[in-house]
């Protein structure tokens, strides 16, 4: 069994290795034909740009994106500066340099990678999946009797912030930086999944399709790990299945198929304000121009946020979204599960959490307010603020850096819910409802707590669960995503997630059940 695991690890690392070198290899040659198409498509009016690219890029075969990309970005920069200097504002090209490099690069790839998409898919995704499964499946036997199996978590480099964890950290952060800021380097990855993308939406894959496909793959494989690890705990099994279903079907398949059907790309479970650009002008316009389905989506998006979300939180707690439906939560609960113990439980972190997450919510709401005002008043500036720059700031700081780079990249070091805890505006909104108007709580079982701290250690949201449990108090915290792991790891059966009557849900106690009845009354009935 150990041998199978090691073989799996080697296969996985080979797959990962191939995946990692792909961005920097391959040959690119921009044909005159595809360049002309590009110019026509984008309506590029700058003669200077066309001649620059034609002399420096078109028809030349270069090796590696490092050689290709700078030619495009430098040409673009040069051209735009020139036009600005000459006040030829109509000729300025408003396409991001790296978006342009990615778009031109995608049509320019030649050689082995482009001709062997299937083989390379197998050498990356295929080997990764096979290797990971070989590594994970022997646990059915190796873990022994079913039950909580956290042995050695703090002895292993990978799960105890050791060098392996730092390598994973580095890899994830770099991956997200490429994805958000240097998407031209993801072109070779897009070739691997072109066939899949074409079969779904009919279009070749972009880097976000790579990300979506990879997201589903990683979640599925790591869900297998969850099923094995928590095979004694049916709550975990049902929850994992749910989150996997919503990711694959709602976040991945349905939007792609909608594109094939000439409908707007839309993830029906992605609620505003997590879906922060829902009310952006381009989205509203696109929806309003899409006929009945567009209007339905517009209605659904508003209804989801204003009605479904709070009503469901009232009945089930915010867990129905955060750990049963949400994609971010889904990745955190599968890929992130081995790192859940790293969320800080200190009071200081809790303070930081409340300031940050609520600031992001305020930011999102204010930004959306500006956006809507701009939309209806048909103006670009509100109170001297340029709506577009507020939107860009939010997209960059919150959408890309916080949710992506930090949110997932920091898993191995700061725990798997960094984004959900410190940054997600939807989580903040759901948290208000959960804290003040909900039937959900984690019930503490009388006086059984022995203060061991397993619950706090394994809380991914950094809640000091023990602080409540050892006082016999129920846990009613806005940040709780209801993953149920505190209840699973409790050795004394002290905690359970429940939806019950609101009365008595918050039960501050001084003296715990089991002590002198009179004393309990004296101290607790205040």
């Amino acid at each position, binding site marked *: 069994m150990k041998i199978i695991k090691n073989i799996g690890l080697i296969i996985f690392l080979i797959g990962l290795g191939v995946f990692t070198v792909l961005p920097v290899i391959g040959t690119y040659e921009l044909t005159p034909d595809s360049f002309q198409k590009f110019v026509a498509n984008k309506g590029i009016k700058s003669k200077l740009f066309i001649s620059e690219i034609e002399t420096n890029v078109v028809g030349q075969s270069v090796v590696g994106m490092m050689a290709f990309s700078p030619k495009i970005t430098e040409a673009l920069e040069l051209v735009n500066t020139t036009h600005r200097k000459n006040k030829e504002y109509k000729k300025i090209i408003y396409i991001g340099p790296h978006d342009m490099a990615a778009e031109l690069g995608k049509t320019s790839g030649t050689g082995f990678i482009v001709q062997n998409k299937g083989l390379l898919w197998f050498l990356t995704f295929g080997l990764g999946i096979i290797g990971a499964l070989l590594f994970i499946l022997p646990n059915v036997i190796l873990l*022994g*009797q*079913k*039950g*909580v199996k*956290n*042995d*050695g*978590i*703090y*002895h*292993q480099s990978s799960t105890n912030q050791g060098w392996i964890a730092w390598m994973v950290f580095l890899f994830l952060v770099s991956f997200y930086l490429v994805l958000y800021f240097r998407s031209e380097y993801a072109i070779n990855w897009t070739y691997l999944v072109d066939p899949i993308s074409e079969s779904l939406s009919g279009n070749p894959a972009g880097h976000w399709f790579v990300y979506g496909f990879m997201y589903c793959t990683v979640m599925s494989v790591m869900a297998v790990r969850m099923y094995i690890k928590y095979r*004694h*705990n*049916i*709550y975990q099994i*049902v929850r994992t299945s749910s989150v996997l279903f919503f990711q694959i079907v709602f976040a991945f398949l349905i939007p792609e198929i909608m594109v094939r059907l000439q409908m707007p790309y839309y993830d029906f479970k992605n609620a505003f304000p997590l879906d922060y650009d829902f009310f952006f002008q381009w989205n509203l316009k696109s929806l309003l121009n899409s006929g009945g389905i567009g209007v339905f989506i517009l209605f659904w998006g508003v209804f989801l946020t204003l009605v479904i979300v709070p009503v469901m939180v009232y009945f089930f707690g915010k867990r129905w979204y955060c750990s049963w439906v949400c994609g971010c939560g889904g990745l955190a609960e599968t890929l992130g599960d081995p790192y859940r113990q790293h969320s800080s439980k*200190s*009071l200081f972190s809790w303070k930081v959490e409340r300031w940050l997450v609520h600031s992001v919510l305020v930011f999102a709401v204010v930004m959306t307010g500006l956006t809507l005002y701009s939309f209806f008043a048909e103006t670009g500036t509100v109170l001297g603020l340029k709506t577009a720059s507020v939107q860009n700031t939010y997209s960059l700081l919150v959408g890309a850096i916080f949710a992506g780079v930090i949110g997932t990249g920091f898993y191995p070091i700061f725990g798997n819910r960094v984004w959900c805890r410190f940054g997600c505006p939807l989580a903040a909104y759901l948290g208000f409802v959960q804290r003040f108007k909900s039937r959900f709580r984690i*019930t503490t*079982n*009388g*006086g*059984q707590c*022995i*203060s*061991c*701290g*397993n619950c*706090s*250690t394994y809380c991914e949201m950094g809640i000091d669960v*023990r*602080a409540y449990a*050892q006082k016999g108090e129920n846990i009613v915290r806005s940040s709780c995503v209801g993953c*149920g792991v505190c*209840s*699973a*790891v409790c*050795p*004394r*059966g002290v905690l*359970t*997630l*429940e939806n*019950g*009557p609101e*009365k*008595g849900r918050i039960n501050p106690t*001084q*003296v*715990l*059940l*089991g*002590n*002198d*009845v*009179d*004393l309990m009354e*004296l*101290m607790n009935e205040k």
Partner: protein
Amino acid sequence: MQHIVIIGNGVSGVTLARHVRKLSDNKVTIISAETDYFFSRTALMYVYMGHMKFEHTQPYENWFWEKNRIDLVKGYVEKVDTLVKTVQLANGEEIPYDTLVIATGSKPNKFGWPGQDLEGVQGLYSKQDLDNLEKIAPNKEICKRAVIVGGGLIGIEMAEMLRSRKIPVTFLVREKSFWNGVLPAGESALINEHILEHHIDLRLDTNLVEIIADKNGNATAVVTDKGDTIECTVVGLTAGVTPNIDFLKTSGILLGRGVKVNRHLETSAKNVYAIGDCAEQHEAIGNRRPIEAVWYTGRMMGEALAQTLCGNPTEYAPGHWFNSAKFLDVEYQTYGWVFSERTKKDCEQHFHWRHHKEKICITMAYDKKSKLFLGINTFGIRMRHEIFDRWLTEKRTIEYVMEYLKDANFDPEFYKQYEEEVVAKYNLEQGTNISTKKKSWKRIFSKA
């Protein structure tokens, strides 16, 4: 303002300190030689097993003590002088007190076995024990085999710890079946099976005769009363605990096995109290033992004594008995009294149900004649403390308990429920016709 000095920073002493601070402005000092800050002793096993780091066992952050004006003194108390009201530390320092509280807990039992003080022989109680075990049993290469002596809760925990590092473990248990002085036969048998499933070499009905040393004074084998010699490098002594009160021998305070206290937790000396594992009631309370070495009783004594010290004299009056433990992968809870065959009275009748495959079972005790419900043991099913506490207060019959059993289930959502099966078996055995009532939030959360 009084100066309250507490010896021992375990759960009893710390609970007392916290409550005194809430109720008064008295000066509070806690003295401990074990660790700088309070930690949860029950979690030491998880540190060795790699589930947690030591700092995770500390329920309060380090700034907590200063913020709440609880002074912490690291030192070993050598002497208590009740006449001049001071305690003397090993480093010569003297600390005066107005009120002294002894909360020094327990130490592992040693019954005079030859070789019990050798290197490689230890109990599992203190932080020092954990540190030492990490030294002598870091892995299966250095610790070729461990022998654990004493089949109680700490023994099985220590076996689980060592097995988590794949160290071969031989487990010597004096009784004919594991913990059968406490557990009824069916449950004890279930745990025997479970111990074997974990590849622990369980030797029932076996006593330790001596521990043999090598030439360096390290334990190298144990000899049992069955005539076996078992080679090993680590010996765990887990045959119960005894109050840790040797330092009080010259103090004049009345001692039995523990520090003798009355229901107000007062010792024989004025302004000196004792709480937790080290306190011994003059007369046992109900079916409880005079010395209760249980986590929550220590906490409850702290809660009660804080009242007394802050001007509201309060007896230590524990409610219905309850407890819990975990045997490897099997959780155990108990509410009320279920005695083993060895200790139960004639009028106590048992109903036992066991799952046909999983390690899940229930035993309920009731009065043969009146059918009064006396208590329940559950393995692999969680039960709601509040509900059983209420039913015991209301003196319900076993038939009532059966009928409303679903209200008491505390398992996580979606878990398979066994109440129907349990009640069906009871009906079959008793010729009754009880049908279970649906779980009702209203009943569960109504304060009776």
